[in-house]
């Protein structure tokens, strides 16, 4: 019962923060709300007894990714403190469509779909080691190829951000 209340509180917190991210008029505040959203997700991981994922979530998403986003905003000219509307004329219809879709999906996922239920067991000891070994064992190919993806993103960011020389 206590866990359920905690779960509802954490989920609500995450959802509200996520909504603020997309609706707040200043980009900088949105980024700060994003930090809070990531923290909420970390809380959900804790509730799922995935401690390692929770720590990684805090370190990578709260620590690195958010800081990077905030740096990018601060370094872009004229982005700090600029108020922009985050929706246009179609906002109402989009909201309506999204709501309908959400209800449909919820119905589909929770009622129609017969999820194969698996009995929750204790987390096996050494789960983190298994995760690490799988990353350099079974999944070494996508793991390594993903670094190419990061390199592409790096080169692309430079191309887009560089001032014209002529």
């Amino acid at each position, binding site marked *: 019962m206590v866990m359920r209340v905690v779960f509802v509180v954490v989920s609500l917190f995450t959802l509200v923060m996520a909504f603020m991210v997309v609706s707040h008029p200043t980009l900088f505040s949105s980024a700060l709300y994003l930090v809070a959203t990531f923290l909420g997700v970390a809380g959900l991981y804790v509730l799922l007894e995935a401690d390692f994922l929770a720590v990684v979530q805090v370190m990578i998403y709260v620590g690195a990714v958010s800081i990077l986003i905030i740096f990018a905003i601060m370094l872009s000219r004229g982005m700090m403190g600029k108020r922009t509307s985050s929706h246009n004329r179609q906002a109402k219809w989009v909201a309506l469509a999204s709501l309908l879709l959400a209800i449909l999906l919820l119905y589909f996922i929770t009622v129609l779909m017969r999820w194969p239920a698996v009995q929750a067991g204790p987390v096996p000891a050494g789960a983190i080691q298994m995760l690490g070994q799988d990353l350099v064992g079974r999944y070494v190919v*996508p793991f390594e*190829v993903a670094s*190419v993806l990061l390199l592409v993103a790096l*080169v692309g960011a430079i191309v887009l951000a560089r001032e014209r020389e002529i």
Partner: protein
Amino acid sequence: MTITMPSVSLMPYLPEIILLVTALLVLLVDTVWGDKRWLVWLAFLGTLVSGVAVWWLAQGPTLQLQDMLTADAYALFIDMVVLIVAAISLLLAYDWLIEHNEQQGEYVALLLFATVGMMTMGAAINVVTIFVALEILSLSLYILTGFARERLTSGEAALKYFLLGAFASAFFLYGAALLYGSSGHLDLIGIGQNLGTGGLMAGAGVALLLVGFSFKVALAPFHMWTPDVYQGAPTSVSAFMSVGAKAAGFAAFLRFFQVALAGSYAQWGPALAALAVLTMTWGNLAALRQESLKRLLAYSSIAHAGYALVGLAAGNSLGSSGLLFYLLAYAFMNLGAFGVAIMLEKPGSGDVMMSSLRGTSRQHPLLAATMAVFMFSLAGVPPLAGFFGKLYVFGAAVEANMAWLAIVGVINSALSAYYYLRVTVLMYMRDEEAGEEEVAVSKPPVLVFALVVALFFVVIVGLWPSVWMQMAQQAALIFG
């Protein structure tokens, strides 16, 4: 505890690694070398060496990298197509890059990265690998699309492509997660063995994956981005992605349906056939009334994705090998058509209007004749490459008892002949109107060379289709 490093032989990934190293070299040389022209040639050399590696792998036994990648005949065939596309695209871009004189290194490197992504897609036998490869390919293309920075349309196209593409990737990922949930496997063979009849969850997964693939190869109704992106992007990039991304997307598409979903053809066959009909009809109808040559080619590429999908929908071995042949034939003719567009486009405008084609044949008879050959091939006039591509995929549909699909395809081809011929007619038969300015055309030697290569192969593939078809059949044998 001891960590045992897995013994991994990277041999099956050799062609991709060669290209990767070349791309890194290009980035490195770019910073120290003054003369940027050599970067393109360095990359060109890389594609040739990689091609040799592909040929070498084809001689030996089939190699495989865990349950992630394979270097079977199918993967090597796709490698060949994609490498040809990359090599010709580099040549097409050469003069545009020199004129532009900025960021050639990044352009060439990104093009090579995209090629690596395409080749990996052809070789991937695991949904995770397919996804990572798809992202490498897409990310590179988003950036390449926005390379013509002096034009606003280029940036707009890049943003549009990026937003919609990210959306499509999310669909793909969700589909993969659902498939994993219902089969417990991520490798295609494992999915195929454990999916069984599937049920609702597997069905939803397959449908979402289908949306992801459809977006990447521009099938209607997920094609909305195509005309804007092809028109806005630098023409050499449009040429590259119209054929390269299509070949890679269809490669993974075909392997996925033939390996992971081989047991449930009865369910997805009709759906794909319906998608093929919708795609070719929509593409052709929209192409009829285009006034920009690049938009026309974009809609024509949508229609061609529909023809190619007929081979997939047929679901038999002739369909698979026909689709592979189609990808090869389409690569040459579309690269050629875009190459001519590069020559005709006015500096700075980045596009060719149909009206400015008038009277091209008077001033540039050879260029007009070349374009006519590409147009005839795209329309499917025998004995050019495009005709045999259509012959094989429509033949496969008849063989699979879907004669109606072949008939729809033929009607569509007839429809498409209208706008392909319109291009030719405008170049040949209309007299220049009084006061019309001369069609300014620059004919740099590298671009001419690339066009000659494309022209050569359109004719050769058309005259001796059996040689190429045999390779495609060899590649399709893996589906048993």
